[in-house]
């Protein structure tokens, strides 16, 4: 009997961040089910197991340890938590298991020369921050118009929330806007003073780097203090249905980045899921949720993992079980062009991604969507983050990390393996 490709699924379906964790997990699992419904990865069936982390690092580590050896070796881990990512970044190289942190995790892990096992595919927080600034400057009518403007960053007081700060500060130096940092303590239900400050300071824009209840709370407080929602821009983790659902009309006009995709109820992959998974009564969550923002992100995350396997099979043998190490190679050599995406049903959902030894990110594109009171609608063109600024920052941070860890940068030969 052929070995199945095992996907561990770290989820949080309870606790403070569950409202956001659940749809993501459902999307992730549904995609894996869809792969099996379509006959597996070139015939290799997929198996998976969920493990509840509760968004807590130590539980996440326990889950990792529990699942990493399953099915001959876990294909790839996607912790969906910056804290867990940090802990696993230390462990994965030893266990030789790749980590996908699509749209989160440490920004400098883009540098595959240092972070061999990390794959912050589809973009990092530095990209996100850069794109937001681009959008804002475009609205204002050019970078020079940002001079003297005030931008407040309301962020989750954790490594996750702090990630964009270096870039925002870098750009502030370049364009002369004033950056106001307003941390919000976990879990984020207490923001009265934060918004009082915003009301006092009247920044021109508020960037929201929240997760879970923090987002909806921020919107409610914005409403309560009369801050215009259309001046608020969330990161892609602050722009999904759970964030605005119970605020309803109060959130109208609020903008957030889309991690390429938004809510895509009409995409082909969603129809596939509805037909082949939900249609057979195997759907993981409620039907209405399929196609929503976080659900889509779950789908994409799972798809990236599966595509890593597929790419690896191209080199190491089609229709064979891939070891995590082989999958790592696959992830490092991803070449998801538009054609492949279309075939997968992701047409219009996301842009092509291709990775390399030096670049584990694969894409720097993003756009903005806006809540109209009922649903998310795209409200901008595509932007690409400015690598001229970000690349040196990545290099510098990665070098620091390497120095601290006494790691050598990978050489060309290593890149081939």
């Amino acid at each position, binding site marked *: 009997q052929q070995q199945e490709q095992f996907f561990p699924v770290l*989820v949080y*379906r*309870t606790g403070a961040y*569950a409202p956001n964790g*659940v749809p993501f*997990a459902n999307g992730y699992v549904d995609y894996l089910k869809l792969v099996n419904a379509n006959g597996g990865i070139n015939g290799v069936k997929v198996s998976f197991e*969920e*493990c*509840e982390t*509760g968004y*807590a*690092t*130590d539980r996440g*580590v*326990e889950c990792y*340890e*529990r699942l990493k*050896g399953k099915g001959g070796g876990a294909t790839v881990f996607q912790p969906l938590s*910056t*804290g867990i990512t*940090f*802990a696993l*970044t*230390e*462990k994965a190289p030893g266990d030789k298991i790749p980590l996908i942190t699509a749209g989160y995790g*440490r*920004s*400098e892990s883009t540098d595959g020369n240092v972070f061999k096992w990390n794959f912050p595919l589809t973009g990092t927080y530095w990209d996100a921050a850069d794109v937001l600034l681009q959008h804002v400057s475009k609205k204002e009518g050019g970078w020079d118009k940002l001079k003297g403007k005030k931008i407040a960053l309301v962020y989750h*007081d*954790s*490594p*996750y929330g*702090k*990630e964009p*700060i*270096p870039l925002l500060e870098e750009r502030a130096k370049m364009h002369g806007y004033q950056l106001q940092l307003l*941390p919000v303590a*976990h879990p984020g239900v207490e923001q009265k003073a934060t918004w009082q400050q915003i009301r006092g300071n009247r920044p021109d824009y508020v960037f929201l780097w929240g997760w879970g209840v923090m987002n909806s709370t921020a919107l409610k407080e914005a409403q309560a203090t009369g801050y215009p929602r259309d001046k608020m821009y969330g990161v892609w983790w602050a722009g999904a249905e759970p964030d605005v659902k119970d605020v309803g009309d109060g959130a109208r006009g609020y903008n957030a980045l889309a991690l390429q995709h938004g809510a895509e109820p009409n995409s082909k992959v969603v129809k596939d899921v509805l037909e082949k998974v939900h249609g057979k009564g195997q759907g993981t969550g409620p039907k209405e949720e399929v196609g929503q923002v976080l659900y889509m992100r779950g789908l994409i995350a799972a798809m990236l993992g599966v595509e890593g396997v597929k790419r690896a099979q191209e080199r190491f043998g089609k229709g064979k079980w891939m070891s995590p190490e082989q999958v790592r190679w696959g992830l490092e050599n991803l070449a998801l062009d538009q054609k492949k995406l279309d075939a997968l049903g992701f047409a219009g959902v996301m842009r092509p991604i291709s990775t390399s030894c030096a670049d584990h990110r694969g894409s720097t594109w993003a756009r903005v969507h806006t809540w109209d009171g009922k649903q998310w609608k795209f409200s901008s063109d595509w932007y690409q983050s400015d690598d001229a600024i970000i690349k040196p920052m990545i290099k510098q*941070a990665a070098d*620091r990390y390497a120095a*601290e*860890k*006494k790691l050598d940068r990978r050489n060309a030969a290593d890149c081939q393996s």
Partner: protein
Amino acid sequence: MLYRENGQFKTSYRADLQIFPIVQDRWAILALVVAAFVLVPMVASDYMFRAILIPFLILSLAALGVNILVGYCGQISLGSGAFMAVGAYAAYNCLIRIDGIPMVAAILLGGVFATLVGIVFGIPSLRVRGLYLAVATLAAQFFCDWAFLRVKWFTNYTPSGSVSVSNLNLFGWRVETPAERYLFCLGFLVIFALLAKNLVRSAIGREWMAIRDMDVAAAVIGIRPMYAKLSAFAVSSFIVGVAGALWGFVYLGAWEPAAFSVDRSFQLLFMVIIGGLGSIMGSFFGAAFIVVLPIFLNQALPAVGDLVGVPISTAGISHAEFIIFGALIVWFLIVEPHGLARLWAVGKQKLRLWPFPH
């Protein structure tokens, strides 16, 4: 019938002052320690080590420290998480800022800094008591959480504020494999448990307990409340700090302040209460209960669900885990309010009487 100390006469006070005066106990403990050092590394799986044994050992150590303060000295503390954090961050800074410092020294220095912070935040205990003190220690907790997030120097200016440590080595011995890490932690735990046990059965331990039970009377027989309380804070936060350093270095590898959040403080307090206030042994029981039980439930419940033919969803499992865990806490408390250690002692006493009912 077998477990009885009849006929074991102690001929000297030295003999009576042993940690385990009963021969059977002594052998059992010795066997346990030997097993922990020799047998376990041979049989345990990677997962056992990394996900269960190592956290169990480290949190036992931390619980031990908390028990000294809370169980022996009676000063309720909800700041243990902060002291762990201080230990971890101080050890980290020692490691990166002092060239060539051995890792063990860094970890112990982490403990020393935790001691200092512990003493500072112990000062209110001279005036404030009981639950009121618990809140004072919460101030320590939240302040430290904040400081490690905000003061960039502590995290060596990493942009995200998360720090990491690797390449553990002990005088040239690279602590690499899970078994080695396990032994490393076990070594710490055994030594500290021994030292702690010595302390609590010496004069200083009696001072702590005296202060806990009746501070006015303690003062009247010449015990200085200030010295007793602050020394308890110092010893406790030293041990907790070391545990914190181990948690960061050995278990997590990379961490952020959230790893030592107030939840951790509560967790440690629960361990010592469930395990048994004022009992070294209780710290181990408590840690086992609080660390291992949820993991066990988490893995056992799906199996049970399969058995009865109702697959339980992940969410269902973790909710059930909460429910069962809560119910078990209550149940154990009703059976024995003084914690698992006391339950154990009562069990032994019954065994001693066995097969007679009383």
